[in-house]
């Protein structure tokens, strides 16, 4: 017997409407409102043991307290899976379902499932963090939405093969995986199919929908006067490391970065520094590592007074094959160190 717990708001918890939206979190043994339908859809192998009810305003305005209280309720309770909603098009309810699911997943490491309408702002906020099923606009689709969540939950718990977001009916979580088409259709056929549709102005579906770009705005320029007073740091994805690669940074698909003391150096010389990057011809960089980490040029600027100095470390990792997620994490870690040390200007070199 697998155990489940459901989160709902004050309205579906039969406490009351908008006037009761400040209702503090409570947990009840057994089934309240939509929990009955959920139990029915999950069947005899599952038991919905508790229903948690919380006012939408309470979760919205006193979120930290609400989550803390609910996580406290769950402490020591046995449950294999956690549900919230369905929230339909109700914005505050959707946000509440997302927040509590995220917290439960993080703390108890159990699968969490909710359901919202595509127009619910909670979808954009939380779809990357959990399974949000595509639900109806109003409570009229309660039975259907609960059934979709339950059906998927059973597949998930049984370890059955899970299909894509579109096929299963939840909002994509931004996770792209390769799958073998069944029945098989080769790429050449798919190209011709798409080509003819595009030529004829018919509707077609790209296999790689281009997501909105994730660009960091370029920082405003530093004035020459300010630049002459501050130290400049160097960070590279070009794989320059001391010979021997002391931090064992990977030559491709890197997950590590290193920092190297250059406070006593004026130049990175051949034989002492090298690149371990496997994505380009290393000859030029090995002959003169300054072509990627331009310490010699920065020292010259320092002497001329153009910059206030060179930061004592340079930071390095490898960019080839490195995923955006890993690159962003390493970037955040390096930036945190630099900011903590008061660095205000960084030269980022790639290859």
């Amino acid at each position, binding site marked *: 017997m697998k155990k489940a717990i459901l989160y709902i708001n004050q309205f579906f918890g039969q406490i009351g409407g908008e006037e009761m939206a400040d209702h503090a979190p409570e947990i009840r043994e057994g089934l309240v409102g939509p929990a009955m339908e959920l139990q029915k859809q999950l069947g005899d192998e599952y038991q919905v043991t508790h229903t948690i009810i919380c006012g939408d305003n309470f979760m919205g305005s006193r979120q930290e307290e609400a989550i803390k209280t609910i996580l406290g309720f769950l402490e020591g309770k046995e449950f294999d899976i956690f549900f919230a909603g369905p929230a339909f098009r109700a914005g505050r309810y959707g946000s509440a379902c997302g927040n509590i699911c995220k917290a439960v997943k993080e703390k108890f490491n159990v699968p969490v499932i909710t359901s919202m309408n595509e127009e619910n702002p909670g979808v954009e906020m939380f779809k990357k963090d959990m399974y949000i099923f595509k639900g109806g606009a109003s409570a009229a689709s309660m039975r259907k939405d609960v059934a979709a969540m339950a059906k998927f939950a059973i597949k998930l718990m049984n370890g059955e093969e899970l299909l894509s977001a579109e096929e299963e009916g939840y909002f994509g979580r931004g996770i*792209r995986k*390769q799958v073998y088409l069944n029945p098989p259709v080769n790429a050449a056929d798919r190209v*011709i199919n798409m080509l003819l549709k595009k030529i004829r102005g018919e509707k077609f579906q790209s296999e790689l929908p*281009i997501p909105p770009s994730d660009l960091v705005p370029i920082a405003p320029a530093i004035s020459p006067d300010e630049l002459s007073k501050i130290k400049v740091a160097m960070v590279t994805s070009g794989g320059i490391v001391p010979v021997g690669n002391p931090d064992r940074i*990977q030559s491709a698909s890197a997950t590590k970065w290193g920092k190297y003391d250059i406070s006593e150096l004026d130049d990175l010389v051949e034989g002492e520094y090298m690149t371990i990057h496997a994505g380009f011809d290393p000859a030029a960089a090995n002959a003169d590592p300054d072509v990627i980490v331009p310490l010699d040029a920065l020292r010259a600027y320092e002497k001329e007074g153009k910059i206030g100095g060179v930061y004592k470390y340079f930071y390095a990792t490898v960019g080839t094959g490195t995923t955006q997620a890993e690159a962003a994490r390493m970037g955040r870690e390096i930036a945190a160190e630099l900011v903590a040390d008061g660095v205000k200007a960084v030269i980022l070199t790639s290859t």
Partner: protein
Amino acid sequence: MRLEIGNFYVKDIVFGAKTEFKDGLLTINKEEALGVVFEDEHITEADLHIVKPGDMVRLVPVKEAIEARCRVGGGPVFPGVTGELMQAGDGKIHALKDSSILVVGRHWGGFQDGLIDMGGEGAKYTYFSQLKNLVLVADTDEDFEKREQQKKNHALRWAGMRLAEYVGKCVENLEPEETEVYELEPVTKRSAEVNALPSVVLVLQPQSQMEELGYNDLAYGWDCNRMLPTFMHPNEVLDGAMISGSFMPCSSKWSTYDFQNFPMIKRLYQEHGKTINFLGVIMSNLNVALEQKQRAALFVAQMAKSLGADSAIVAEEGYGNPDADFIACIVALEDAGVKTIGLTNECTGRDGASQPLVALDEKANAIVSCGNVSELIELPPMETVIGELESLARDGLSGGWSNDAILGPSVREDGSIIMENNAMFCGDMVVGWSTKTMKEF
């Protein structure tokens, strides 16, 4: 141009007294064949094996795959590479189908080399597990690159081509079971019916990222890094004008066999005169400097426009840095009013959560995607290994590693492996074979 490919279907391969082809049986005189391999003094050690679909055999580090062929009436199978320059794509060749020559390093692998499982659950990851293969496993005295992650693999790749010509020679004077004919009228001399169809150009972006010569794909023996986009007849590609290089994570690579059999080209031929007017191939490249990328995109768009292409297909041999060429080329074509389809694979990371291509543009609104290079693949031990299994972990293969804090090494003591799709030999089959796609979860 008219190319006739006479096909001989290989049902089985055996070693025997005489190299010959009879009733589907390909017999190889091992000693004579090895003699061809050893014509290059840089080959220090060599052996031949036969592997077939379903064999519980793992091959690694695989460096190249080539279809055995001969040019009827004489001439090299690979003009400008294995012999004098001559026009490819016009005339008659004989080909041994359902089989390939695979070249495997005896010990040393590199960034660009891959793995093939002939049987078991790993077989689906490469095209070559479906073929009957003659495997050359050899070592060389190219000590300058023995421990380099990037290898030119010159002696081994050229030995593979010589072997393909040697084996192909045995069907020179035989009558093929079937003949495929590839013929396109000159662009300005086509019938009114064909001209009325939407015209399509195929833009290929073969690998050319290395500045140093010896690593990149070759066009008639010319390094693709040193060329500007040029107009080619599709028959030239099918007939040995293009040679695979020795650079790029392996699942993204196009082997010489892939060029010789290019399914996207063959598919366009099928549609020619029916639904489309196939104009030909614009052979571009994937150089690393931004200006070179921009220049290539300019040339491609201009050529497509001058040819009057209504539509284009752009395929890239690689990922990462080449994604910038791929997207730039699609954008330039769309800006020139050419309706464009992209053909590529993706790098979404082991967790699938990363940006799929390095460069993106909303104008690239029609893409066929053939897989995720970083998908993790775990496979059980194999009864037989040809080559050296440890190379996957030791030699910097793009999908292997010597150690990982969580996953451990790619090659385990019991012979089981864990790797990224990156090291599957030509596994993403962007040339058109791939039945993989990418879906969001």
